[in-house]
Structures are given as C-alpha cells and as structure tokens.
C-alpha cells in the first residue's frame, strides 16, 4: 500500500506536535522512523492508522482517503499494547476470528507464528500473566498474522531479548522480501534500523528532518 502524506498537522491545544509538509511511503517497502522522544513518531503512526484525527492535512492510501475497506488492511501495534483478557492463543487468533477463518486454518496459522517467535509453550497461558517481552511478542504476532497491507509498528522490539530480536527481524524481513505489504516501524535502535530498513525517516520536533537510504541518514 502506498501512503502519501500532504500538509499534515496535529495540534494539542497550543502546541503543534506534528507538522509534515509532504512524505511518501512506497508500496511494499520497509521504513524506519526514528527521532528523539516526543518528536511525534507515535502520533504520526496513530494518525496513519486512523486512530487519531489530524488537525489539518490529508493522507492518501493508494490514492484514496481512509475508508472502511482500507482500514481492514491496516494494523497498528502500539507502544503500550493491550492484550485481551484471554489466552495467548486466543489473542493471536483474534484477527483471524474476526475474519471468520476456518477453525482448522486458524489453528495452523497461530501455531506456525507461535513457533516462529518461540511462544508455543505459552499457548494456553493467560495474556495478563505474561512477562513484558512475552507480551510484546504476542502483540506483534497478533499484528503480523493476518498479513496486513500496511503494518505500523511502534517500537516492536523495545522489551525483547537479543535472541528473540533476531527471530522477529527475520519475520519482518521475510514479509518485506515477499512483498506482502508496506511496513513502517518506529525504533530507537539505530543498529536495527540499519539492519532492516529500505529507507529511514528522521523526525524531530514534529518535523521531517531527513528521509533517505539508511546509510545517509544514520550518520
């Protein structure tokens, strides 16, 4: 999915926290979004995901404004993810249940991603009792499983251990290689941005500072 942002502004009261004149995310590419705390990165993703309204400006998704059918193909993994009060399995299966997949298929898909992320042993554990990193993995699995055309990830590996980070990066890269959709990923880990991203966007004080191939930006 191609995202075209034009004259986007977001104010909270007096303060303008986001002010982006123009920004293009091309189809099936993996973008890193970096910048200091409070720069407006999460706000940008929340607006793209449709969770928040911008004060001004326009976002086009493959040339259209946001509507219900498009919304179905977007997902957003928030910085403070919320897991449902049920088991790990049910949490990951939830987007598929919403899409009324067959029970057998759901089971296979969930099992597969749980294997990939080494979550299988936690299958029947209640999500509220997970450790921080485990919970983050589950939230990520839930976002990845239905293969959205636009995947918005807000610091998805912040609480993950180094080994698991490798697994997750492998999954994300695979998705990118198979051209299953566009990915925007916020991270504070510059190494990670370098490893993964086709292009990096640097935001500061709500403004777009640099956009480009990672090497140029990450100096």
């Amino acid at each position: 999915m191609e995202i075209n942002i034009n004259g986007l502004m977001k104010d909270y009261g007096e303060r303008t926290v986001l002010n982006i004149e123009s920004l293009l995310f091309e189809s099936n590419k993996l973008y890193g979004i970096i910048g200091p705390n409070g720069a407006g990165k999460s706000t940008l993703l929340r607006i793209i995901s449709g969770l928040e309204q911008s004060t001004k400006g326009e976002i086009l998704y493959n040339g259209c404004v946001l509507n219900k059918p498009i919304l179905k193909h977007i997902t957003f993994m928030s910085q403070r993810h919320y897991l449902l009060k049920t088991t790990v399995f049910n949490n990951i299966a939830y987007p598929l249940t919403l899409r009324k997949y067959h029970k057998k298929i759901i089971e296979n898909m969930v099992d597969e991603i749980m294997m990939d992320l080494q979550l299988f042993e936690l299958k029947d554990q209640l999500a509220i009792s997970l450790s921080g990193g485990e919970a983050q993995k589950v939230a990520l699995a839930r976002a990845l499983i239905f293969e959205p055309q636009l995947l918005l990830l807000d610091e998805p590996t912040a609480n993950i251990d180094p080994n698991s980070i490798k697994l997750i990066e492998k999954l994300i890269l695979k998705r990118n290689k198979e051209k299953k959709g566009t990915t925007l990923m916020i991270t504070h880990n510059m190494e990670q941005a370098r490893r993964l991203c086709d292009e990096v966007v640097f935001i500061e004080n709500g403004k777009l500072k640099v956009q480009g191939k990672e090497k140029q930006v990450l100096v």
Partner: protein
Amino acid sequence: MGYIMEGVKEAFNLLLSLDREIYSIILLSIFVSFTSTIISAVIGTPIGLFLALKKFKLKKMVTRLLYTFMSLPPVVVGLFVAIIISRRGPLGHLGLLFTPSAMIIAQTLLITPIIMGITFNNAKEQGQEIRQICMTLGGNRWDTLILLIKEMRISILIAIVTGFGRAISEVGAVMLVGGNILGHTRVMTTFIAMNNSMGNYSMSIAMGTVLLVISFIVNSILYKYVVGD
C-alpha cells in the same frame, strides 16, 4: 429486638412451610426482577458503551442527564407508567395495569439508567483502548461491541448486579403499577410493606431475610458464571 430474632426464625418457617402463597410471591418477585434486569441489560449495556466511546456534541449534557436518571424515584416512575397504561392513558387498551407486565415495564425504566450509567462510567476509563484494538485488527462495530462486553465483563457484571439489586428491592414502583394483588401481583417487597402497615413486623423481617438470601444466591451464581471462580 425480639422481632428480629423472631423474624429470622419465621423466615425458616416460611420457607419450610411450603405455603403455596408464599412461594408464588417469591417466584413472582424473581421472575419480574429477572426479566426487567435482562431487558435493561440488553438495552443499557450497548447504549452505555456507545455513549462512552462516541464523541458527539452535548456529550457532557447527556452524561449528566444519564447520572440524573440513575436517581429516578420509584414512586415517580411507577406513577408515570401507571398513567400511561391506565384505562384512560394512551396504552390503556392493552389492559396492563395491575399485571406483572406492568411491574416489569416500571422496573425496566427504573434500572436501565443504572446499568447504562455504571457501564458508561467504566467504559470511559477502559473502553477506548479496547475499541482501538478491535479497530486496528479489522473489527467492525458489531465486533467492537462484542469485544467490549467480553473484556469489560466484570464491570458489566457489577452494573447488572446493582440493577438487579435495585429491581428486587424496590417497592414504590411495583406497588403502584402492580397493586399488590394477592395471588396476582404481590411480590416480596409489597408483601413486606403490607405487613409493615399491618404491624406484622416479624413477618416482614422474615420475608426480608428470604429476599436477602435470594439476592445472595443470584449474586453468587452470576459472579461464578462471569468471573469464573
């Protein structure tokens, strides 16, 4: 004080006596309050959730009105319903006055705002996050409603328990629209009120004890079912 001891003793006699009249009063109470609680929950929960999550003009006003309607006085609700369904009222031809249906209508009016208000208040705190999760994972409105109910089940439970408690214990409305007719519309609370006015205190205390026991059982069952422990 003697009345109270005596009343508790009498409560056992009442229950063990297998008196058909007493049992039909108890069953009618349960039936009426249960039905109105179910109707109120079906109406009040979704609307409460909706109001909490939707942004709209006048929301503040609606919130306050909702809280106000939580303190609707039973006697006023009863009178209002009685006027509507009385012979001369707009729904008079249905012949509802002094029937259990009338009591259900009145109680439903009384407790719907309570269930709605408590649900509303809880959803304002926790609901937004749940709604957003459902939305970002591809759910529509209906999915959102279902998910909210599932995730907030404990909060909704307390709303329903509060509503049921109000329904089974109130007397002002059912007295007016039911009429406390022996064998037809006499429920536990009107029975208690009547015995009070007859000076039969221990009978009142006895039925009051029965009412609390029933309330306890209903709460325990609901609680077990919803919380699962």
